């Protein structure tokens, strides 16, 4: 029984590193450049895992444990999602709180690691990271609330699985709004344009990149991987909301899922190519807009 | 002899006006002395039955209100050696006018609020007007001593009122009342004396140190 979800999980973990590459490639293509190959991140990870590490003298064990926590939380969070729309490895009432909680724990560790170096740059990055997340969190909960109200289920496996497919006709508008909001959140949580620019080289404009400034070798690799998987998870949420995977046969669902992830990545790329990056103090408004979409969804269901 | 007490009561009213109108402390005291005498006469006039009660009451009243207190107050003035003029807050004519108003008012009230029936239709109105005049003096005079006089007048008014109940209130109590008033005035006099020493004036408007 748990074999299917397990396989899907491994699949998602496997394809996740390709997603950022895909997004970047799309962006390059649309802006008329060749850009790095889609599988670039795999190579980087492979290289980084081989590399030796440099630690700042200021740092404490927190700095070394953080990357592990980051990736561990993302992976465990993945077990709560019914990736293929049928079942999740682990599911209980209100597990969506655990899902967000785990992502939060990862962020907690990452931010502390940044502060551990005592560098003003990384302090700045950490500050921005928590600022962004402070506005992202309510939006995420509103999106999940839409699902709860639509399906009446309290567990992710329920609200993204068969019951969701059943209520689609009735709740379509709200669900679309929620999906849109989730997509915006995906941009924010995985630090893409317009919230952050992974391609920038000026520390003062960075959010995510500047936190990991001092990380090197395997630690850096884990953080990059974790970020990629996070994108995968949010993509999976979007796909799960929009596509009634639960109705598909068990062998087909994973394929559709991967395809959907690809679409999401391309979408990210398109957004990056046609949007400029927002000023730091405008970022909250972007996320408030996402919440607004979700709130509309909620209101549609409440009335 | 019902005419007599009516006459006495009218005299009481006149003494009230005297107290209001005169400009000298000593003469206000004389006025109260005479008022006391009138009050002493009233019980007998009202209750011709020569009972111990009325006699005693009359005697006691006369003793306290005509003899002792006025002489005591006069002594206080002499000791204090103060300027004898009264500086009222409001002019004499005004206070007289107010006194007249008080009399009118008390006759008016006599109709409005229910009052004990008494042998004389004048008794209650006069009592009330005397009470009002007492309060008037108390509130409008600046000299401590004249305030004592005002208090005395007030008490006189109440005494007149009490006469309507004279057979209801036992003799002993009447004496107790008299004694209390006597002691009260006595202590006030002493305080006035001290005030004069401490502030070298009887002007009670100077007593405004204690406030919030």
């Amino acid at each position, binding site marked *: 029984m748990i074999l299917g979800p397990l396989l899907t999980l491994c699949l998602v973990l496997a394809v996740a590193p390709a997603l950022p590459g895909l997004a970047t490639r799309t962006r390059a293509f649309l802006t008329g450049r060749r850009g790095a190959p889609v599988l670039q991140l795999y190579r980087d990870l492979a290289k980084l895992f081989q590399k030796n590490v440099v630690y700042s003298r200021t740092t404490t064990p927190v700095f070394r444990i953080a990357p592990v926590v980051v990736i561990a939380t993302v992976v465990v969070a993945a077990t709560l999602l019914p990736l293929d729309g049928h079942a999740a490895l682990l599911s209980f009432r209100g597990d969506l709180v655990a899902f967000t909680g785990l992502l939060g724990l990862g962020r907690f560790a990452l931010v502390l690691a940044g502060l551990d170096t005592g560098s003003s740059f990384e302090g700045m990055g950490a500050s921005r990271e928590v600022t962004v997340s402070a506005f992202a969190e309510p939006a995420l909960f509103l999106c999940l609330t839409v699902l709860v109200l639509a399906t009446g289920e309290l567990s992710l496996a329920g609200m993204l699985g068969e019951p969701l497919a059943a209520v689609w006709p009735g709740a379509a508008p709200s669900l679309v709004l929620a999906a849109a909001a989730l997509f915006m959140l995906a941009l924010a949580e995985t630090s893409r344009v317009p919230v952050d620019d992974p391609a920038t080289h000026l520390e003062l404009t960075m959010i995510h990149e500047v936190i990991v400034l001092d990380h090197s070798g395997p630690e850096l690799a884990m953080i990059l991987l974790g970020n990629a998987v996070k994108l995968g998870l949010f993509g999976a949420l979007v796909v799960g909301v929009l596509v009634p995977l639960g109705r598909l046969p068990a062998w087909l669902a994973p394929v559709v899922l991967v395809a959907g992830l690809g679409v999401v990545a391309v979408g990210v790329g398109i957004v990056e190519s046609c949007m400029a990056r927002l000023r730091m103090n405008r970022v909250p408004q972007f996320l408030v807009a996402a919440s607004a979409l979700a709130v509309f969804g909620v209101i549609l269901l409440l009335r | 002899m019902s005419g007599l007490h009516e006459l006495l009561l009218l005299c009481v009213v006149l003494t009230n006006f005297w107290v209001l109108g005169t400009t000298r402390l000593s003469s206000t005291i004389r006025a109260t002395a005479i008022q006391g005498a009138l009050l002493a006469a009233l019980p007998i006039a009202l209750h011709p039955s020569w009972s111990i009660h009325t006699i005693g009451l009359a005697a006691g009243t006369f003793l306290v209100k005509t003899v002792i207190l006025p002489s005591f107050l006069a002594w206080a003035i002499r000791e204090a050696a103060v300027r004898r003029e009264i500086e009222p807050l409001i002019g004499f004519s005004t206070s007289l006018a107010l006194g007249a108003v008080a009399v009118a008012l008390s006759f008016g009230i006599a109709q409005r*609020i*229910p*009052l*004990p029936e008494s042998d004389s239709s004048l008794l209650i109105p006069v009592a009330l007007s005397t*009470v009002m005049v007492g*309060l008037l003096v*108390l509130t409008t005079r600046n000299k*401590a001593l004249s*305030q004592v006089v005002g*208090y005395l007048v*007030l*008490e006189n008014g*109440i005494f007149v*009122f*009490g006469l*309507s*109940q004279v057979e*209801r*209130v*036992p003799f002993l*109590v009447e004496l*107790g*009342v008299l*004694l*209390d008033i006597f*002691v*009260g005035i006595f*202590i*006030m006099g002493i*305080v006035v004396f*001290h*005030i004069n020493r*401490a*502030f070298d004036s009887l002007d*009670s408007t100077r*007593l*405004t*140190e*204690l406030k*919030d």
Partner: protein
Amino acid sequence: MQLLPLILLPAAASGAAYLVRSVRLRSTILIGTAAVHLGLVGRLWGDPGSPVPGAWLAIDPLGLLVLSLVSVLFLVTGVYAVGFLRREPPRGGRVFVTGLLGFLAAATLVAVSHHLALLWVGMETTTLALAPLVYHRHDRRSLEAVWKYLLLSSVGIALALLGTFFLAAAQSWGHPLLLEDLIAGATSLHPSLLRTAFIFLLVGYGTKMGLAPLHAWKPDTYGEAPSLVAGLMAGGLTSCAFLGVARITEVTIAAGLASFVQPLLLSFGVVSLVVAAAFMIGQGDLKRLLAYSSVEHMGLLVLGLGLGGVGPYGTVLHLVNNALTKGVVFLAVGNVVLATGSASADEAKGILRRLPVSGVLLLLGLFAVTGSPPFGLFLSEFTILNAAIAQGHPWIALAVVVLLAIIFVGMASVVLEVVYAPAEHPAPVDRESLLLVGGPALLLAAVLMLGLYVPLPLHRMLMAAAQGLGVAAP
């Protein structure tokens, strides 16, 4: 006729105290009289004696309650006075003791007299007996205080006499002005005359109680009189004055005029609370502060009286608690004044360090007098609030809660500063004489006990006392 000695003994003692020259002997007379008086009162609890029809002097529960309060408070104050006179310059010792004992006699007369005119005589006498004590310090301020005290109280009391005559006029049956007959023949009383009488008596005795807006003499007098005298006034004199109000209320309610009486009492109560609260904000002088607190508690007394239901029970309980608590706080403040020479919050500071015992007494006294559990006043205030809500006056209850809160801020901000703030010129720790702290400590213990539970005999007595005031069992 076991009541006469109660009056004559202190009267005689007061005369004696004036005659003797030796301070020691005078103190002995004072304390001895107080003790014997208390003993006699205690015997009355045993057997109140059978009421003699038509007797002017009789003992009833409410009267006995007030009598006991005065007696207890007087013994404590007397003991304190001995210590006080030792510390003060000897001047005035004679008049002082004489006045105290005279007050005891007069208060006893008030408590036991069932003839309302006689009650008036006693009331006036209490006023006069305490006047020389207010003037104890013989300076301008105390002179001003005693002048205002005398004149206002006398005018008030004069109005009460007028009211008494009105009452006599209203009566057409039984011995004149005799409480029993008034109540028994209440229905035969002339209603509108009775109303007039009630108003005059309420204003008259209300002035002596210090109900706002008739309270003006209180802060000045309490502020200038020696603390123990102020305490005796706030605990004893006001209780006597309240007895006057209670008597006439008994009669009026018995005559079926409750609907006329209660609004008056309620409005006096609320106004007193408001005025007390307003004047306590930013009040810098401890004794004036306590004076306003006394206004507040008088307000609560009449409030409970006016509420009906269990209100009167709360009132009589409050009477007891208030008397004892006032003793505590005034005597504690007295120690502060003795030590620092001032009762103003700016000059008296660091009391906890300098007078540890009195400091603690003052601190606990603050909480007791503001009705914090488990001190007695909380229980009576609880009962009064209970009556307010049960009788359908929730807004009065809420108003009382808010006003009590404001009052607490006013008191706490001053007292806590006096207790805790470090003094400008740190002084060594005084060793406090037992005479000065023993009494208040005992009173505080009693107040605490009353908050935890009301002993059965006292409860019965309170019930009986509240009966006449139109009470339902709480």
